[in-house]
């Protein structure tokens, strides 16, 4: 995902990890344990893709996880899985909007 470098410039994006659906770690910005996050989010994304198919959502593009302090945005692009750590959580809609406009196929 070539847009990774621009997205991580947003102040609310505290870290980002790029992996694939099998959990292979491909890249990370401001994240110490990208390997584990890529592995877990690859597993989660694979499960969500299956859930999306069950729900008839079409090709899954994004999924948001929102906690009371932080949030995470999963961005799926073909075989890639981008995980953005967002803080504060209320900044999630803004980050998602930015993803929609800056990453091809997410609009």
């Amino acid at each position, binding site marked *: 995902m070539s847009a990774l470098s621009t997205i991580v410039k947003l102040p609310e994006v505290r870290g980002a990890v790029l992996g694939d659906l099998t959990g292979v*770690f491909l890249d990370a910005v401001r994240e110490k344990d990208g390997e584990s996050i890529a592995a877990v989010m690859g597993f989660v994304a694979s499960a969500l893709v299956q859930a999306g198919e069950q729900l008839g959502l079409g090709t899954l593009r994004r999924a948001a996880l929102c906690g009371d302090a932080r949030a995470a945005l999963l961005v799926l692009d073909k075989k890639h899985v981008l995980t953005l750590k967002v803080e504060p959580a209320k900044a999630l809609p803004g980050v998602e909007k930015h993803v929609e406009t800056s990453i091809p196929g997410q609009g």
Partner: protein
Amino acid sequence: MSPSPTIPSGAERVDLAGLAGQKLGNYRLEQLVGRGRMGVVYRATDEALLRPTAVKVLSWAVAEAAGQDPVHWFLSEARLVARINHPRVVQIYGVARQGELCYIAMEYVAGTSAEALVARQGPMRPEVATEVLLQAASALKAAHDSGVVHRDVKPGNLLVDGSSVVKLGDFGMALGPPDARIGNARLRVGTPYYTAPEVWRGEPASPASDLYSLGATYFHLLTGRPPYAGPDLRAVEQGHLRGPVPDPRTLRPGLPASSAELAMRLLAKVPGERPASAQELIWEGRRVLLELQSAIAAAPAGAPPAPRAPEPLPRPPAACAELRQAFGFVRRPFFEADPVAPPYRGEPFTSARQAILAHLSEKAVPAAVLAGPPGSGRTVLARGLAAALAGSRPALVLDLSRADGPPLLPRLCRAAGAVEASAHGSLEALVERLGEEALRCGSVPWLVLDGVPAGPPPGDEILALLSAARSTGAMKLLLVGEPGLSEKLAAGGAPLPEVLLSPLPRDGIGAYLESWLKAARAPAAPPIVISPDAQLIVGLRSGGLPGRIDRLAENMLLLAARDQVRAISSWHAWAAVDRERWADRPPAALPRRPTPWPTTEVVAVIDACRRGAGLPPWPKGAP
């Protein structure tokens, strides 16, 4: 040189327990090894033939108290036993009188009694107790065929040598005084704990009462105590006469039903409800033994022997507290795969299983080799095959990896329920026994010999077995060992078909790990994720051998449990060791992750692994 001390002659009374060092005929008495109702027994050396001998010296006091002519009594016992020429009966070498002492020289059994074994080690495993029962039953059959009733069968009269061969001794009660055969029960019974009800009632002892005593003995071997262990003689008598037949499972709950039911049938109050003869008991005992052996074949390799506290078979080992609490493991992961339902059923096991079955289903192929390096999963596969076959044909599994174990052929004989006529007659007895089973089941029995030594030359016993399998067709052999075993066993002839168990392929390692995680945890436990880089490192370090993967993986899990993470990363795979298991180590003693991770050296290794798997290199600049 001083003359040897000799036994004093004349009418003076001799302290029978103080004869060590003295000489009776050719026999130098060395050590007092037992006391019986009729006298004492010494271990001695036959100084003419230079062989160990047991010498039984008569107690005058007992003979006189019984009003017997001791010489007649002794000679009668010797003649009686000499009539029973059987490998499971202690043989008589000679009988003589010296001065006022009479003695019988007999076969010395270097071992101990079954009673002492149970006292020292606790109840026997059911299959071991049943083997003892079968050997004693064959001795009784020989005695009964010769018209002799033993009348004192008990654990103390079953002598077990270092190779687990059992011999029935002390036929002293088999004749006894004539009035002891009928009449006052307290005078004529053998040992109260093992005496049949009809004998307590004063009826003559019979082959059926010997079988009752053997049943009480079997009960003792299985449970560690006789069936009626009352506080006094009257309570014991009442138990035998009127007490309900005790179920050994009340003392040992996990005992297999077949074994318990056989013991109870032998203890029936009415002689007609017991097995009709020693021969019938041998047949029933063999069936029970085969059932028990089949259950063992289905048990995990390396299952702990002889549990003192009885447990049902088989029970997977529990996970340690750290793995139970952190990850929801209900059994120990990566430890002792269940051969019947192993967690992993993929390649190369499926192909290897099919290849073995294909080879051994050919009539002209008497044996096949399952070869693989240690840790390749060959034992689990072989035991699984035997367990799967056990329903349709007899399948015995023997582990040959113990260098200190008894010789192979006698072990196989006992496992199969065959009674060998001599040390050299094992193979004939085994072939005959397996032939009987083949006729009974309609299919040729399998013998699975695990851990066949690789080093040349192969054992004579294995070559003899192979030769017997080829020429008789009475058995199929599956020999499990290291690659190249087939050529070593060929001995110049055509090599046996060999199925090579290959290491797990790279993409099979992830499936292997996943299958274990699924099999060992509660269904609702949250997932554990193993990163692709961790899987690559496990593959590299294990060489794809399940035995090494198992140790690495369990140690990885222990590290992750200590770190309280559910994602297993390259660091866990790098730090875990494959030479030992860390389950007993305190968490604080486990290695700590360095910062930063991975180091340059590790990145180089990961990149090499990734290249081999067709993946992009570790991201530059990360972490």
